[in-house]
């Protein structure tokens, strides 16, 4: 720990609560536990922490959050890992303690399914709509004279057509 005062305690009551709940007693426990068992490495702790979010620091994964409260959460994860808990057990523990919002994504149940199902449905619907609109437009109105004239122009062999198109576009670039 560094000597400078760490941030946050004063800023949010929640942090205080968190710190009180997990704070000093926990630190002692962790140090003891670590002393007794093979210490889980920082990488092992971060692998779990990366999938979790604390309720205070919005949208910052726990493994990179610099606040004191999050450091204590990571210590808690280390302790649980040392106690032989699995990744899933630890995640479940945090969910029970602090609710679904500690997970990086809403758990797939109940209303939460809407978050997963709605976007693909809308995109699919959009795709179908576009397909039908295009088909209807293609089958629809007769082409105007101008259109027909341009159609006739646009059919010569590929290379000539490309040169013609390029030149025409360069000439008519003004709009």
């Amino acid at each position, binding site marked *: *720990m*560094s*000597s*400078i*005062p*760490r941030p*946050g305690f*004063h800023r949010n009551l929640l942090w205080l609560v968190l710190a009180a709940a997990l704070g000093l007693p926990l630190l002692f426990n962790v140090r003891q536990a670590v002393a007794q068992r093979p210490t889980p*490495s*920082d*990488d092992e702790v*971060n692998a779990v922490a990366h999938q979790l*979010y604390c309720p205070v620091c*919005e*949208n910052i*994964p726990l493994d*990179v959050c*610099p606040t004191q409260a999050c450091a204590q959460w990571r210590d808690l994860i280390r302790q649980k890992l040392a106690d032989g808990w699995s990744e899933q057990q630890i995640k479940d523990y945090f969910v029970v303690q602090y*609710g*679904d*919002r*500690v*997970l*990086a*994504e*809403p758990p797939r149940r*109940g*209303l*939460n399914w*809407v*978050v*997963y199902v*709605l*976007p693909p449905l*809308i*995109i699919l619907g*959009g795709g179908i709509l*576009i397909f039908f609109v*295009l*088909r209807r*437009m*293609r089958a629809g*109105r007769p*082409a105007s004279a*101008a*259109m027909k004239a*341009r*159609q006739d122009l*646009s*059919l010569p062999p*590929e290379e000539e057509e*490309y040169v013609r*198109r390029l*030149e025409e*576009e*360069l000439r*008519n*670039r*003004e*709009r």
Partner: protein
Amino acid sequence: MLANFGYSVLVITFLLCLYGAGTAIYGGLKKELRWVKSARSAMLLTFPLITLSALSIILLLLTNHYEVQFVYEVTSNSMPLYLKVTALWGGQAGSLVFWCWLMSAFASAVTLRKWDRDIEFLPWVIVVAMVTLAFFLGLIIFVENPFARFWAGPNGEQIVSFLQPAGAALLTPPDGKGLNPLLRHPGMIIHPPMLYLGFVSFVIPFSFAFAALVTGRTDDRWIRLTRRWTLVAWLFLSLGLLLGGRWAYDVLGWGGYWGWDPVEIAAFMPWLTGTAFLHSVMIQEKVGLFKRWNMILIILTYDLVIFGTFLTRSGVLSSVHAFAQSAIGPLFFTFIGLTFAVSLALVLTRWNDLRSEGQMHSLLSREALFLVNNLLFIGILVVCFWGVIFPLVSELFTGQKVTVGPPFYNRATAPLFAGLLLLMGVAPLSAWHHSTARTLGKAIWKPFAVSLLVLVILFANGMRSPGALIGFWLAAYAACVTLYEYGRGVLSRHRTAHESYPTALVRLIARNRRRYGGYIIHLGVVLMAIGIIGMGIFQTSTQGTIRQGQSLTLGEYTLTYNSLAEFDTPDGRNVARAVVTIDKNGKFLAELHPRRDYYYESQQPMTIPGVRSTIEGDIYALLVDWQPISSQGATFKIYNNPLINWLWLGGLVFILGTLVAAWPDREREAQRAAAPRQASVPGKASA
């Protein structure tokens, strides 16, 4: 007093906006030019007025008037001059004033153009600008007052109010809290202005669309008039997003540049609809299709701009309670709802006028592919919008708060982005009107074959990740097609006009800036995609606590901890700076200085990485923790971020391409000014 002056000016400007909007509507409906001219004068007057008010805030900031709450929140005695000035957009109230200032500048500039045959648009353009401005000024005056002051009440309590409460005396703290240290970075100083410039300049094309709807001139005149505005808006928004990413990478100390945070998404959403709009207006100009869709896109962009401004500054979407309690949230939503409803109602009343002029010939034609492009952009928008909104929905219906984080967005948007890369490799080769599988196939096979070669090489070199193989192949394919398009153009000019290759290339770009500038943008996107895929799939990291002289290993790299120094700086920071060396396979590579700055005033730490950058990637070292007394042990985290610099390089190319596409063309302007008013003639335009 300066605060009173600044506030009074804002109130006058607010009233002026209401007057301007009223007279513009009256003048527009009655077709009386003198009313419109009066509204225009009001519009032009807003700029110097808001300038005065903004200058008042800047003066207050510079002269340390800590009795003003905003000044207290964002500055302190120890802050350097330039930071005190830029602190104007360091807090919500000031940044709203800054927003209004930019808005009035852009709106004034647009009313100063030669209107000639488009004069009927003018009143409605003014109405949109004035109503938007009035809304934001209203927010500042009634809700987020940057001139509110601290008062000591008769019973010793502290009151924040603009006007002096009865029996209260002005309270002046000796020092301010100082700007959030995260915002004291060059990237953060120019990032918000860029974003805001992007936001406000998107209001201009919307105002013309609105004018077109009201006046019934629903041909593509409004699109042609605002083409450059749209590109400029898009340029600034892109720059803002890129700078924001770079800032996050340099300052936030988590080894990444984009975290799918609601604030980031807020700025990204109008960019998505804006990009879709930039593509789809070409269909309307070229073949007269999808007029209604373009209207809807620009309306969406406008409202997403307002939504983005709201989200980036307030953050109240984090919970239902914060939203309900904030005065600003419901006001924003009402404004967004009203403007959306009114605009949509206008589109519906003009529904028949907005019928397509042309027709679709082939499902493989460029116009059809552009439509698929729009679907993909809107798809990404749906994912983003829903992801940002869902936590609120969930809390509202179940009481349960949820986080919608990066895994959700990455999974949902990756296939859509891949689709866009694929389209970038198909659409440029398809023709307007007619394209069959045969003609398209003929054009595609050469670049396709080359890109397959890239795939084979990657596979032979041991790359096995399916995501990376698909991603890199798509990027290679899109790059091949874009370069092939350049090659074909240059060759054909070389052959037909007998120009040398370099001349042919320069002329090709100069004579169709929009298309070839667009292709440069595509190349930029390809480079960025390479960086994003490289970083996203191959990033590795490790963390460990080591003593002096000990090492931490990540793949072929080792980090050795040499020393650590802790010291105070004159600007109120405590700095802990480590010296580490990075070796690759035992060979010295670089000395890095990861550090942790602690700001005493704001009691906030900031993690500054030590980075070694090459085109291969970055070695990015963070000082996570350290033992202060003996300086013996310190915790470091190292990231290997492969190909990340391709992202920044691609960003530069991207911006260059946008500049090429948007650069004014004097000759063309002159021709356009001389041309008589005409309805859209499909086929005459160039894409």
